[in-house]
């Protein structure tokens, strides 16, 4: 299990008290043998510095009330600035129809709008992590 241990940062805004979704996903990832770091961000910079320090394979951002496109845009740009844009970003939660196009344009790796099977979510995180590693060792 050692070299294959996948690490994921699961984060939501500190201001958002709706943590049921993020905890459900985090538990599903744990049950799929991943290490999941839970973190409440105050700024997009917090997400990127936590992801770099924790050396995660995937970043998952959960949205309830707002910031879907704004926060994700900043995270993607800050990752590039930190030369960490090899880390895929997954978003989920309340993703409104008009958020989809800008999020896809940003190159978000996956979007979960609710109702997905947990096994599918876990498989997505797993394959994104493995794809990143395969690319890194090339």
């Amino acid at each position, binding site marked *: *299990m*050692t*070299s294959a*241990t996948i*690490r994921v940062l699961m984060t939501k805004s*500190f201001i958002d008290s709706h943590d049921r979704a993020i905890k459900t996903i*985090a*538990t599903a*990832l*744990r*049950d*799929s*043998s*991943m*290490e*999941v*770091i*839970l*973190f*409440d*961000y*105050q700024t997009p*910079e*917090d997400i990127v*510095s*936590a992801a*770099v*320090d*924790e*050396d995660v394979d995937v970043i998952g951002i959960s949205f309830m009330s707002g910031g879907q496109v704004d926060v994700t845009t900043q995270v993607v740009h800050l990752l590039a600035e*930190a*030369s*960490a844009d*090899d880390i895929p970003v997954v978003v989920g939660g309340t993703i409104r129809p008009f958020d989809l196009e800008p999020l896809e344009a940003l190159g978000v790796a996956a979007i979960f709008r609710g109702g997905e099977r947990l096994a599918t979510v876990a498989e997505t995180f797993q394959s994104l992590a493995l794809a990143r590693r395969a*690319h*890194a*060792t*090339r």
Partner: protein
Amino acid sequence: MPPGSSAASLLAGLRDRDRRLIGRAITEIENDSRVGAELATLLQSGPGQAFTIGLTGPPGAGKSTLVGSLVPLLLERGHRVAVLLIDPSSPLTGGALLGDRIRLSRVAASDALYVRSLGNRGAVGGVTSAIRTVIAAMSVAGFDLVLIETVGAGQSDVSITAIADFTICALPPGLGDSVQALKAGIQEVADMFVVTKGDRPGADQLFRQLRATARRATDSQPRPVIVTSSNDGSGLAAVADELSGRSAPYEGALHGPEAG
């Protein structure tokens, strides 16, 4: 991305305080990969070690909250602080929910602060088997204080005391009767006691019980007992001063001629 980083490049990254390479170095050490093992060998001949503080106590004692409250005070006192947060890995799947970082969400990111969440990956005693090498890596990366929060520990989980220079036992009021304070194990080997949730009923009573047992037969001075509350901030500066004062003699080791 540091693809296929060699041990030498990771060591250079630690010396340069490159956050990306610090993160990767710990991953390789934790995974006990070939590169990680080579890096561990290189780190054995590194400079003097950072002052290492272990924080232990029962689950729910408020250890993570205490860390979140102490870190800004330690940064204010001019320390460069590495925080290692250890949580249990699942014995069934090897996965882990590492939730302690949430308590540090209000601490702003800083060059002087590095925070890393670690699964214990099956090690017993509240720490991880890679912890000594991780501490050495933190020392090379210029952190003079390493604060380790253990997995919520039972009465006899004393592994941290063999690793840390100084061990704090955090205890909340209301866990049990006065006999609990007399038992053998972690309370016997801790260097300092911090009563958490000091604004709750029973904190004074716990303080008196701990103070009564704070002086062991071999101690010239009683061990410190400090009542804290992260709600009202009481006692936290006293804990930070105690840690800062204890660490002072170690700082020279990092700034000496051998420091990378």
